[in-house]
């Protein structure tokens, strides 16, 4: 085992429970044996690390493997984003987009022909229903335009229109919105701490053995400098309490990452502080490289416009109706980060230019020394 041991892992039952909560919300089959359920669900999702499947069925051991499996799910399935999207309050204006799929092979050719005709008819009925939905949505949007507080959007959604007709439902909607807000806040909190989580997983990699996905994550999650607020015990406590609060209203796993950080802090006695031994210059270099990289990737990245899944229809007066997909939370965060990076770069550039101009002016003046900040 490694040097800095006594890394505290939560007990297997806790982890199994966590995995069950996580998996059960995505997969819908049941098994008598909970452990077997977790294993088969992981297999279903393509988790192929044999050590996990060799774990004893009495739940006596396996913290590390389970933790690894959980991290894998977190990374692989964009777990939290999926759950956020699922728990979003519906506007009622949603419709779904999907690419076309071809037919598969069958048996008797006459049966195929019949099936083809039937399928075609079903698809056409669906199409007609969709058209009707769009027409009616258009009516709602048209009639309510100009009434919304939001100047840019301008019209009501189906949910809002329904609320006008049945005001007594406002309490329910309010509750849903509040719960959604809390989830988003917890998610943002998690996003701040996420690099620490992955770093911790990577650090303890010797316990897990080689894991390719942990390596790839270093690149993804090291882009942000470590949040300095994790250095104090008091902050950890606050995180934990916040986590507790959220836990009451939210799925278990939003709480988990904060929990592990707390336990980490307690057991390893401030080891985290030592890990922030980056020298100041190294950090500066890293920061500037990161900024340049982000900027570059932003400029070079092709526009990925693969629309698939649920999206909200919004009324625009110029063209009849256009689709605005409100992207996942991670995408929004990343976009904002990129924008921040490019703005910072621009700022630096402007500062440079300023400095140069000042130097030029200073050269022209005798007896004046310019000290740049």
């Amino acid at each position, binding site marked *: 085992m490694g040097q800095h041991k006594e890394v505290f892992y939560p007990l297997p039952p806790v982890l199994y429970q966590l995995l069950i909560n996580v998996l059960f919300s995505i997969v819908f089959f049941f098994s008598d044996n909970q452990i077997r359920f977790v294993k088969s669900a992981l297999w279903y999702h393509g988790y192929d690390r044999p050590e996990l499947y060799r774990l004893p069925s009495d739940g006596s051991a396996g913290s590390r493997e389970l933790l690894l499996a959980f991290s894998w799910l977190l990374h692989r399935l964009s777990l939290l984003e999926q759950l956020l999207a699922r728990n979003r309050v519906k506007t009622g204006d949603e419709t779904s987009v999907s690419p076309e799929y071809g037919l598969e092979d069958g048996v008797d050719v*006459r049966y195929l022909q019949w099936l083809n005709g039937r399928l075609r008819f079903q698809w056409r009925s669906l199409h*007609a229903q969709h058209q009707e939905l769009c*027409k009616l949505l258009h009516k709602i949007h048209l009639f309510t335009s100009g009434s919304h507080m939001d100047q840019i959007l301008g019209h009501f959604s189906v949910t809002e229109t329904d609320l006008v007709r049945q005001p007594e439902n406002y309490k329910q909607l309010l509750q849903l919105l509040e719960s959604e807000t809390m989830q988003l806040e917890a998610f943002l909190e998690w996003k701040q701490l996420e690099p620490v989580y992955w770093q911790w997983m990577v650090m303890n990699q010797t316990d897990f053995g080689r894991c390719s996905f942990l390596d790839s994550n270093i690149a993804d999650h090291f882009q942000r400098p470590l949040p300095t607020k994790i250095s104090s015990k008091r902050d950890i406590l606050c995180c934990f309490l916040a986590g507790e609060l959220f836990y009451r209203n939210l799925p278990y796993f939003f709480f988990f990452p904060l929990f592990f950080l707390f336990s980490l802090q307690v057991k390893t006695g401030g080891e985290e502080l030592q890990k922030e031994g980056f020298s100041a210059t190294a950090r500066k270099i890293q920061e500037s490289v990161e900024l340049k990289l982000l900027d570059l990737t932003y400029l070079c990245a092709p526009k990925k416009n693969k629309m698939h899944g649920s999206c909200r229809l919004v009324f625009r007066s110029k063209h009849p109706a256009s689709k605005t997909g409100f992207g996942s939370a991670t995408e929004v965060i990343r976009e904002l980060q990129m924008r921040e990076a490019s703005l910072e770069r621009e700022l630096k550039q402007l500062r440079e230019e300023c400095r140069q101009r000042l130097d030029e002016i200073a050269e022209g003046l005798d007896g004046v020394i310019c000290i740049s900040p």
Partner: protein
Amino acid sequence: MSIVTVQLGQCGNQIGHEVFNAICSDVHGTHGLCSKKENESYHDACKERFFCEEESEVPIARAVLVDMEPKVISQTLSMAARSGYWKYDDRSRFCQKQGSGNNWANGYSVHGPRHKEVIMNLVQKEAEKCDRLGGFFTIMSMAGGTGSGLGAFVTQCLRDAFPTSFILNHVIWPYGTGEVIVQNYNSVLTLSHLYQSSDALLVHENDVIHKICAQLMNIKQISFRDVNQVIAHQLGSVFQPTYTAEGGLHYSRNPLGSFRDPSLYTSWLNPRDAFNAWKTPRAFNKYEKSASLVSNSQFLLKPLDNVVGKAWNMFASKAYIHQYTKFGIEEEDFLDSFTALEQVISSYTILC
């Protein structure tokens, strides 16, 4: 969900009028033999399906009337308006003064392209009035020139303009000993073209209906009106709103969703898939109990074979072909039509 009807030619317009009449009188009749609530929801479903109730006092049929002669259309419009229960939209009509002379090529190659835009505009207007367009129902006869030729052309245009809509063609099969000498040519050309654009062909044979009038209804002097009314009654009962297959409490908005003997069905399709039943407690047109059966079977194999055979014999001696070639329908087009129909015949022959 709504259906837009396109009435084509003399036959199409007369039958169309009878169909709307039958539906409307059924809706307004008090012989529903069911509860008031039941009646009301039936009423609503029917109204949405066939009529448009905008600002006017009477419901307006969702229909476009097309003919190359003005007489039948004006008669149809005025008869409907006189009923007081419903009417057509006066603007939803298109007619000319020339007629088609029972020449399929005239209808298809001349009148069709010439008047395509105007006719499709009318159809588009009707389609836009519908909140949910279920599809199109065209009525035509196969034997004449307008209904058949222009009808085939219009069906093609409908398919091009509404690729995802359901198109049902109601086709009148002419009397075996009909008056139009080239009716078999017209029939063959109509069927082969409709096959490409239509989703379903619903056929009524004049001979069969005639028998119904004579033997079942004991009518002495059978007029076209009698025949048309029988057809209209059958169509009306087929289009009558019914419950969805699960037996729900409200009428299915979709018209087109326990005969279990396997010998009735083909080997490659089980009865569960092949047979669908729709029920309703509300009686149609004063019949206490009625059932309508629509089947896709080998029933039409014989008549079809008959018509194709006769047409082929005529074609072999090149009789009357010049009437068609002068309007742009060449011998190759005839051959293509024959080939297409032979394929249909063979598919139906090996159905079981």
